C-alpha cells in the first residue's frame, strides 16, 4: 500500500520550525496541516511537525489562513 518511507527518516534530518521549505510540503494550499494518511509520516514525526508548524505560524513564517 504505502511503500514510501518517512520523509525525515529517509533523508536523516531533524524537524525544525525555521525550515519552512520542508515544512511547506506538509500543508495544503489553504495553509492547513495534512493528515497522516497523506504525509506518510510516523506518528511521532507527525506530532513534531504539527508542533513545528504551529510555532512557525506564531513567528510569522507561515500563515494561519491563506487565500
Amino acid at each position: 500500500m504505502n511503500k514510501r518511507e518517512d520523509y525525515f527518516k529517509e533523508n536523516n534530518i531533524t524537524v525544525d520550525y525555521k525550515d519552512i521549505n520542508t515544512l511547506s510540503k506538509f500543508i495544503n494550499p489553504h495553509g492547513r496541516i495534512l493528515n497522516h494518511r497523506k504525509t506518510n509520516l510516523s506518528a511521532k514525526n507527525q506530532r513534531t511537525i504539527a508542533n513545528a508548524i504551529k510555532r512557525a505560524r506564531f513567528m510569522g513564517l507561515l500563515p494561519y489562513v491563506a487565500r
Partner: protein
Amino acid sequence: MQNESIMSENENMIYEISFIFDNKLEGKKAEEKLVNLKELIASNGGSFISEETPYKRELAYEMVRVQNNKNIRFNEGYFGWVKFEMLSESILVLDKTLKLDEEVVRYLIVKTERGNNILTRDQSPILSNNFTNILVNETVSERFESVNIDTTNEVISETTEEKEFSPKIENQNLEDLKEKE
C-alpha cells in the same frame, strides 16, 4: 515537598531564542540589537552555539505591537535567532527583558538539542545541480547529433504553404448584423 525537589534542579540546558525586530531599524541597528542581546546572555552565564544575523522578511500576516502607548501594525520585520546554553533559572530574566522591550515585535524561547540536521541544497538529489547536469548532457547530445540545420530547413519549406492573412470574417459579421436589425 514535591515542589522543592523540582525547583532545586538547576542544570545547563540548551535554549533557542528567535525574534522579530521592528522594521524601522536599518541594516546596522538590527545587528547592534543582536549584539546587545548576546551581551545580556553572556552576563547571565550563557555560552553560544549558533546564530543567524537578522534579515528583513515579509511576515505572513499583520502583527500589532504597542509602542509609545499606540498600536502599530507590522507587515515586515527583521527575523533572527540565537542558540545557546544556560542555567535554567536565569532564562526567566531574558523572558522579562524581551517582553518589556518595545522594539521586539515577537519572540519565542524554545528548548532544543545540540545537533541539528537540515536538508541543504547540496544534499538533496533533486535540487542539487549535479543530478540535472548528468541527465541533460547525456540525452540531449545524443539526440541532436543526427540532425543538421540544412536538412531541417528544407523539410520545413516543403511541407508548409505560405498563406496571407485576410480579415474576411469582419465584413460578414457587419452585414449579418445589419440584416437582422
